[in-house]
């Protein structure tokens, strides 16, 4: 398991290269990476990401451990940048290695949902019209809820 909270840029392809490294017990590798997007209608000059240094890595490490246990992952990688990013830059990535594809996909989506609404990062867009904190979307919080419900459901069924 590897968790990196960093200011400098990274390349998801290179990170993925070292991730799997010749194991023969895993059958499925999923990766997600988030990219700074700039709409033609409202172009942004840069994206600033603030985080909570004492808490961020600890929080991500906790959720990554939960994902590893819940989906029996063979490995798990989370990288998240902070500081100033430009359009086209990779903001973050997660990668999950599992025996089968369903587990790898679910764990990656779980990690993403967590990072969206529970990890202490805040985005601010800089554009011609000024600086604007990105508002959280209720949808992201709701999406996170499904994992709690699912776990509760499993418990009900023994």
């Amino acid at each position, binding site marked *: 398991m590897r968790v990196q909270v960093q200011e400098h840029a990274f390349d998801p392809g290179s990170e993925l290269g070292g991730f799997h490294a010749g194991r023969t017990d895993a059958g499925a590798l999923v990766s997600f990476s988030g990219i700074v997007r700039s709409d033609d209608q409202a172009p942004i000059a840069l994206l600033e990401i603030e985080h*909570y240094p004492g808490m961020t890595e600890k*929080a991500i490490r906790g959720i990554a451990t939960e994902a590893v246990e819940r989906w029996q992952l063979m490995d798990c990688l989370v990288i998240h940048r902070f500081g100033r990013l430009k359009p086209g830059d990779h903001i973050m990535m997660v990668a999950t290695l599992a025996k089968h594809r369903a587990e790898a996909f679910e764990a990656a989506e779980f990690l993403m949902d967590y*990072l*969206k*609404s529970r*990890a202490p*990062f*805040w*985005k601010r867009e800089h554009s011609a019209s000024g600086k604007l904190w990105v508002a959280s979307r209720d949808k992201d919080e709701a999406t996170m809820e499904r994992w709690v419900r699912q776990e509760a459901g499993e418990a009900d069924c023994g």
Partner: protein
Amino acid sequence: MKQVNVKYFAWVRERIGKSSERVETNAETVRQLVVELGEREPRYELAFSDLASLRVAVNHVLADFDSRLENGAEIAFFPPMTGG
């Protein structure tokens, strides 16, 4: 009298005008601390005017506004997170 370390992030930090401070308080819960700070200065009152749009972490863990306040704790206030 307790001493807690209080941190502010994103627009909460901007409204209050600092990123952290040491606070002496008799508050029993996070909610009581919020009320106490709000009574000090208008900028705190403004920053804390809508608790539904705020989140709090106690000792680096997301917490409830009704969490008990312990001496020496680190309390952080911030808007809903927008990572990923």
